[in-house]
């Protein structure tokens, strides 16, 4: 275990956070919020101090293995959340540290589950920081650091592996740093495009930026109490379409950029993702045809909500908790599926679902022809046995955590739907669930213990479980 390099990178991550905290500081200066300004200044100073402290000892050995990669990833996310929650406490928006931490973890993991009951009285600086955490967390903190830091050879792959979502890490170009730059370039470009389109819909710059941040990271923190419902239908369409765009594997955009549209559109995961969205929209439209008779409104509501849930963003234009049973059930199922691998969305990921679906199909054929030799394929390529196995193990671990968490938070005594959808929504980084945690409700009423369980689930969901579980193994901390 090379702890010195772990701390060194951790220091860099924290310094980065301090640098990013300057943005909400500027916002609060513009809006003349003295308490918020001092809160951000203090937090920045703490970040710089902690960051420099971590980086004091330069590591002799700059190489780190997969173990260190996992460790540094898990620790980074925890540490930036702890530091990021300081402004909430200092401004008095959230007085309890657990609630403040919950809000920050929910932000960085792009969940968007909130414990703030009234957003209208929250200072603009804090609202901006909340949305910015989504943007930072969406593509990943370490990928951001990777883009900036001097490359240290192949071991950087271990960082990317631990943080990027999906069953396999795909590089776009041979060099990791260049890959990180391209990914952030696409991310940046899409964010700017969305902001401009929102500005064209006559939104103020503050609203346009915060909403784009929330969409980009597939987060879902709104700046109004009713999320997106009170915006114009143009704004809802823009956000709806962009949510779906951010849920697409970024390799798709890269292929488009290097003018290989044929290859881009032949990506099976993207196709499956779009087909699932289309089917879900049609089912919900049919189910809700009596309650929302105007077909365009019906389409807008259904499309927005399907997009918000499958990409794990969690914005809402309607309180879908009151929708018909079929629609609600479909939405809960979509929560599990999640977005594409290599996107900013969470959930199990469409590619994993595809691999599992095909494994099941293969196994059924095996029952009929016991000696049959079959392979699981994705994008016309055989999926290696190790990948299939890791997908299966991932889903099992995921279900174990889900079951255990539901039991743990049931101590609070709420109904089953609330508990179950709260955990599903945390583990898949969505935000709203059903009943008490539906789009109209929030997570404030849960006990501190339940909040800790939910925070763990959010981190586990964002980091795809294993980096977080590694923290709990004794071997991780041993030297040999």
């Amino acid at each position, binding site marked *: 275990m090379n702890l010195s390099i772990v701390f060194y990178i951790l220091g860099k991550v924290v310094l980065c956070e301090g640098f990013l905290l300057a943005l909400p500081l500027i916002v609060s200066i513009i809006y003349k919020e003295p308490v918020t300004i001092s809160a951000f200044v203090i937090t920045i100073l703490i970040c710089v101090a902690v960051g420099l402290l971590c980086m004091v000892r330069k590591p002799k050995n700059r190489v780190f293995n997969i173990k260190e990669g996992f460790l540094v990833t898990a620790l980074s996310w925890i540490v930036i959340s702890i530091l990021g929650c300081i402004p909430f406490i200092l401004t008095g928006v959230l007085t309890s540290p657990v609630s403040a931490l919950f809000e920050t973890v929910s932000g960085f993991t792009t969940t968007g589950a909130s414990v703030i009951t009234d957003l209208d009285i929250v200072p603009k600086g804090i609202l901006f920081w909340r949305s910015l955490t989504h943007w930072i967390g969406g593509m990943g903190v370490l990928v951001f650091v990777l883009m900036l830091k001097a490359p240290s050879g*192949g071991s950087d792959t271990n960082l990317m592996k631990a943080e990027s979502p999906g069953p396999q890490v795909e590089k776009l170009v041979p060099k990791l740093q*260049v890959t990180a730059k391209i990914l952030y370039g696409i991310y940046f470009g899409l964010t700017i495009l969305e902001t401009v389109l929102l500005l064209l819909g006559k939104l103020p710059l503050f609203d346009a930026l915060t909403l784009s941040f929330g969409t980009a990271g597939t987060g879902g923190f709104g700046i109004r109490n009713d999320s997106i419902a009170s915006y114009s239908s143009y704004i809802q369409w823009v956000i709806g379409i962009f949510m779906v765009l951010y849920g697409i594997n970024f390799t798709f955009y890269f292929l488009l950029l290097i003018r290989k549209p044929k290859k881009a559109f032949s990506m099976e995961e993207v196709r499956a993702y779009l087909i699932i969205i289309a089917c879900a929209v049609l089912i919900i439209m049919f189910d809700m045809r009596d309650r929302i008779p105007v077909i365009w409104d019906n389409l807008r509501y259904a499309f927005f909500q399907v997009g918000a849930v499958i990409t794990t963003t969690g914005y809402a234009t309607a309180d879908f908790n009151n929708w018909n049973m079929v629609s609600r059930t479909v939405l809960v199922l979509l929560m599990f599926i999640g977005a594409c691998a290599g996107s900013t969305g969470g959930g199990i990921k469409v590619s994993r679902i595809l691999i599992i679906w095909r494994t099941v199909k293969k196994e059924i054929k095996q029952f009929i022809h016991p000696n049959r030799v079959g392979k699981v394929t994705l994008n016309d390529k055989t999926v290696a046995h190790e990948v299939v196995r890791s997908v299966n193990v991932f889903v099992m671990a995921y279900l174990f955590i889900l079951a255990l968490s539901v039991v743990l938070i049931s101590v609070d005594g709420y109904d089953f739907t609330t508990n179950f959808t709260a955990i599903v929504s945390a583990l898949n980084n969505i935000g709203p669930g059903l009943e008490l945690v539906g789009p109209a409700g929030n997570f404030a009423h849960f006990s501190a213990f339940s909040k800790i369980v939910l925070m763990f689930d959010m981190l586990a969901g964002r980091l795809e479980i294993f980096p977080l579980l590694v923290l709990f193994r004794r071997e991780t901390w041993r030297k040999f």
Partner: protein
Amino acid sequence: MNIILVGCGKVGNALVKILYDEGHNITVIDTNSNKINQITEEIDVMGIVGNGSSISVLEEADFENADVLIAVTGSDELNLLCCMFAKKAGHCRCVARVRNPIYSQEIEFIKQQLGISTIINPELATARELSRVLRFPSASHIDTFADGKVRLIKFELKDAYGFDRMPLKDISDKYGCDVLICAVERGHEVIIPDGNFVLNVNDIVTVIATKENAVEYFKKLHLQVAPVKNSLIVGGGAIAYYLAKDLLQHNINVKIIERDMERCEYLAELLPDATIIHGDGTDRQLLTTEGIEDAESLVALTDLDEENMMLSMYAKKQGVNTRISKINRFEFDELLDELDIGKVVFPKHLTCDFILQYIRALQNEKGSNVKTLYQILDNRVEVVEFSVAEESEVTDIPLSELQLKPNQLICCITRGDQVIIPRGKNMIKVGDTVIVVSLNHGLNDLNDIVAD
């Protein structure tokens, strides 16, 4: 540069590491997914599992934008096919490893017809290196520069010859030879010496000289300069064949011991002037019968590294002066220094070096005035050959007045046919070729050597 490398064997692996360190964008292709996983985990390169001679795999590796394709799989035909496809469908330069002697005779034809830029035959390259050392037995390694006019010779200082009390600047006066010591390995340290440097016994010294001067210099040091008169080669593989052919051309007697009868007959047919012995090269009786005591040199070229090392040690006991063993695996190469097994050649190293030199030369084509670039002494020292195209702050000034950066040395100037080992009063002129030895990597311009 964007480089595609097909084949992740030992050579491929070693190449990837060095090329990555030099900052290239590399995509590796291999049919074995384990090898690809291993390499992508270790190094920041893109890995593709598949057959490198398939167009769809090459497309995935983005060969249209690649500058160089290097094919070093185990199969000659596959290597040639990869290069052919990449060349026909893309615009990259291609380097292929082709080792079958039948193809090597037709290498120029293949190169032309398939449009392959360079073909490396590791066995042939190894044989040439062996032959150079056998013809100049005191050196442990020889590189040639300036179209063969200048040689870089590495040897171990086994005896002090009074050097250990004398700073370098006095040595050349005493011996009166135009030879320059340009790098010294002491333990694990590499030093670019200046005039006040004092040598120690057991230093490994690299000198630069013309061929004639080197002979004279070594004679004054009482080191063996004449080529060996005969050579006993154990193992009759491809290297042995090429080596024997080369040595016979230089009138050196060759005896090859080979285990396989069929191979013996084949060799006897191809090398009528050599003595081919059928038998086990590790058989003590046979070695004695074939006169190992009287052999001037022994080259151990069997397939087993251990056997080669053992043979070399046994030969030392029998009083053979020049011993060379071929070692295939170079994972633990630093251990070999501690064993007394004479000189060692790594055919795989040579293949790597050859390809690296090609890539570096390609890179230098783009805009810099570097003519050739060698890395010596485990790649720790760069030897760069510059051509001086125009007047600058280094031209027309006596070298003694130039303030060079530390760890750099101007060690040779070629002016037309004249080779100058420079002293303080010499000057660099426009049109010269200058060789600089440096511990700092990445020299691009002659003006970079001057301290600011």
